[in-house]
């Protein structure tokens, strides 16, 4: 319980609803001078920077004989029927670690390469005592600033491509394509990567037609990413995306230990598809190179499934492959309304982006990129999707029998509570959704389904339950969230912290989602509200 000083909230009460003056009313509370508020009610609100309690929760603490009107009347005279609690009192009574955060601070190590760009010229006259931090910054700047400003600039060789013509004075180009902005990203000589200019020039010398990837000479299942050069071109909004993959001239390739030790493989007349399959890891590695350093793509076979896995260093590669294999059947599942093009799964121990590079049941490999919890995934997802060659899925249904017949009647429909119905009406990003609630008879797991009209809830509830169970056996840890992309359509499964050992899943979508940020906010809100019940 959290104890709130009555005097801090007394002003919100309608004085004429009580027979006693407010100061005496406080002394006659269940705990004189204080209101007691269950802590569990405050948790979700603290995340919003507020703490309120419904009158109905605390009404019993007031002496009934002192109240002249009904509880409903008092509630009606309070904003939203609730008392606003002094947040400072609430915070003070919570344990010290109540707000401990486990997510990592964003990695800003790269900024040390740049001195602080700004320093105050002199302490402003109005400042009687200059701010110490600013002064410290100023001192450090005096030394560092000129190092960079006057550092010998690299020779800006004009690339052998056309440069944007001189333009008039002011705002000129909005993030010009790579070719135009080449001088900007050209590395100083000390940087280990080859200047982009050189790479660009090399590319320009290549034939226009993209060469077919050669058969992979490597028999090892590990292929180092640096084998290919990748050209990254910024899109309009500034997010770099791998535009295309080209083979760099042989002399410019970085060392590839395994590949270079092997002799050039003889040109065998292997079927085209087999050659492409062998080249796949390298192509994927090249695409992913911009986002992961020291990248290694491992090709592993698990039963009939080929997994191309990429794992950030914190994660065990074997565990990533095993997790991918456990989850793979769910990407090729008959219960889904459309073929899955990508799934992003977040568990307590890590996150994985699974992208089928074709129809899995037809032996297409599965790309699995795993990162530590909290790592940003949006760009990774986009790059991984790029790894799927155009038309690889082509909307084809798999012949897989995964999930077939796994739809018993152990999930029973229950009445949709009013708060769930209200929640369903509040979804906007997913379009219109139909709320359904199903409960597992054996485990008491509750599935809150908010699905696009026309989608059957029961098979997808079974699907979500199977996903949850798969994650419990996975190295990624218990399920936190699952986002399944089916072309433009999305299906989201979220674990709901229902408290007291109860388990619940939220399953939403199934149709197109065009406002992803809003969708995420709505899901967060829904999970919070369902969990608070």
């Amino acid at each position, binding site marked *: 319980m959290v104890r709130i000083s009555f005097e801090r909230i007394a002003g919100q009460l309608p004085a004429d609803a009580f027979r006693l003056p407010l100061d005496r009313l406080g002394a006659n509370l269940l705990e004189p001078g204080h209101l007691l508020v269950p802590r569990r009610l405050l948790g979700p609100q*603290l*995340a*919003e*920077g*507020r703490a309120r309690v419904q009158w109905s929760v605390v009404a019993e603490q007031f002496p009934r004989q002192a109240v002249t009107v009904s509880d409903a009347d008092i509630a009606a005279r309070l904003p939203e029927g609730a008392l606003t609690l002094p*947040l*400072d009192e609430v*915070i003070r009574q919570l344990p010290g670690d109540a*707000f*401990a*955060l486990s*997510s990592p*601070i*964003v990695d*800003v190590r*790269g*900024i040390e390469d*740049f001195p*602080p*760009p*700004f*320093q*105050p010229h002199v302490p*402003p006259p*109005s400042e009687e005592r*200059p*701010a110490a*931090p*600013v002064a410290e*910054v*100023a001192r450090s700047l005096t030394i560092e*600033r000129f190092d*960079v*400003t006057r550092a010998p*600039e690299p020779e800006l060789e004009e690339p052998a491509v056309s440069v944007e013509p*001189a*333009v008039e*004075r002011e*705002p*000129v*180009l*909005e*993030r*010009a394509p790579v070719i135009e*902005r080449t*001088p900007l*990203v050209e590395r*100083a000589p000390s*940087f280990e*990567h080859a200047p982009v200019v050189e790479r660009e020039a090399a590319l320009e010398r290549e034939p226009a037609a993209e060469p077919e990837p050669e058969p992979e000479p490597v028999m090892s299942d590990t292929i180092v990413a640096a084998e290919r050069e990748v050209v990254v071109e910024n899109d309009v*909004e500034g*997010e*770099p995306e791998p535009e295309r993959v080209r083979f760099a001239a042989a002399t410019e390739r970085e060392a590839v230990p395994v590949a270079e030790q092997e002799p050039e493989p003889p040109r065998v007349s292997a079927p085209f598809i087999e050659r492409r399959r062998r080249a796949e890891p390298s192509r994927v590695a090249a695409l992913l190179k911009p986002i992961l*350093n020291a990248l290694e793509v491992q090709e592993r076979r698990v039963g009939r499934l080929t997994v191309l896995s990429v794992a950030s260093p914190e994660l065990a590669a074997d565990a990533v492959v095993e997790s991918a294999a456990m989850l793979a059947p769910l990407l090729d599942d008959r219960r889904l309304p459309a073929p899955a093009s990508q799934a992003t799964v977040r568990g307590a121990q890590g996150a994985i982006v699974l992208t089928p590079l074709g129809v899995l049941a037809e032996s297409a490999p599965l790309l699995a990129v795993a990162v530590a919890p909290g790592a*940003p995934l*949006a*760009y990774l997802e986009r790059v991984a999707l790029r790894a799927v060659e155009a038309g690889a899925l082509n909307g084809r249904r798999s012949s897989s029998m995964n999930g077939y017949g796994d739809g018993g009647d152990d999930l029973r429909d229950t009445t949709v509570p009013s708060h769930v119905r209200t929640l369903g009406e509040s979804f906007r990003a997913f379009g219109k959704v139909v709320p359904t609630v199903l409960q597992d008879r054996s485990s008491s797991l509750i599935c809150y389904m908010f699905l696009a009209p026309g989608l059957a809830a029961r098979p997808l509830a079974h699907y979500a339950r199977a996903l949850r169970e798969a994650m419990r056996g996975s190295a990624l840890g218990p399920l936190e969230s699952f986002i399944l992309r089916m072309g433009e359509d999305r299906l989201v499964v979220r674990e709901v912290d229902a408290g007291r050992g109860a388990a619940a899943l939220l399953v939403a979508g199934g149709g197109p989602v065009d*406002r992803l*940020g809003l969708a995420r*906010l709505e899901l967060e809100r829904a999970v919070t509200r369902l969990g608070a019940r």
Partner: protein
Amino acid sequence: MSIINHAEKVINFKVVYYGPGVAGKTANLQYVHKSLPHTNKGNMVSLATGDDRTIFFDFLPVSALAVRGFETRFQLYTVPGQVHYDMTRRLVLRGVDAVVFVADSQYERLPENVESLKNLDENLQRYQSSLDEIPYVIQYNKRDLPNIAPIDYLEYLLNRRARRVPFFEAVAVEGKGVFDTLNTVSRMVLAGEFGDGGKGAR
């Protein structure tokens, strides 16, 4: 997004100070403006109401160090914090390279901070961006006032995304924390544009 003038070898970055009304966004720019040498700053443009509330935006162009032969310029903007000026905020965010989220540390302003941060993310989404992608820092302002929330709670409230960002305590009217904030977000922008690994500092 950065604007590049190859002819003059200048690259412009847009940094927007975002946050609820009266959090101290304009105070940040004013302190920067009065503290920088004339050679490094242009005129500060403010469109404010009679009670000094920003009605449209503040704008302060400042120039910084040269990188790879390009002069870097930062265009510092604020947005009006009041809820009903959302369209203006959205316009100001267009093409933004980085954001400073100025939060009011006082307990009674915390819900507005949360709302404003959500509003920022929603508005970024309209430009196919998000707080998970754009460089930003948080400044907890007004640390000299009584009745301010402790930093760990502010962090829990405003900086608990999967990717936590650098934060600064500040008293903007006195200049405390103002340049720390500006320099860090500027360096994040520079690292994203010029640094090894492209957007690695994000």
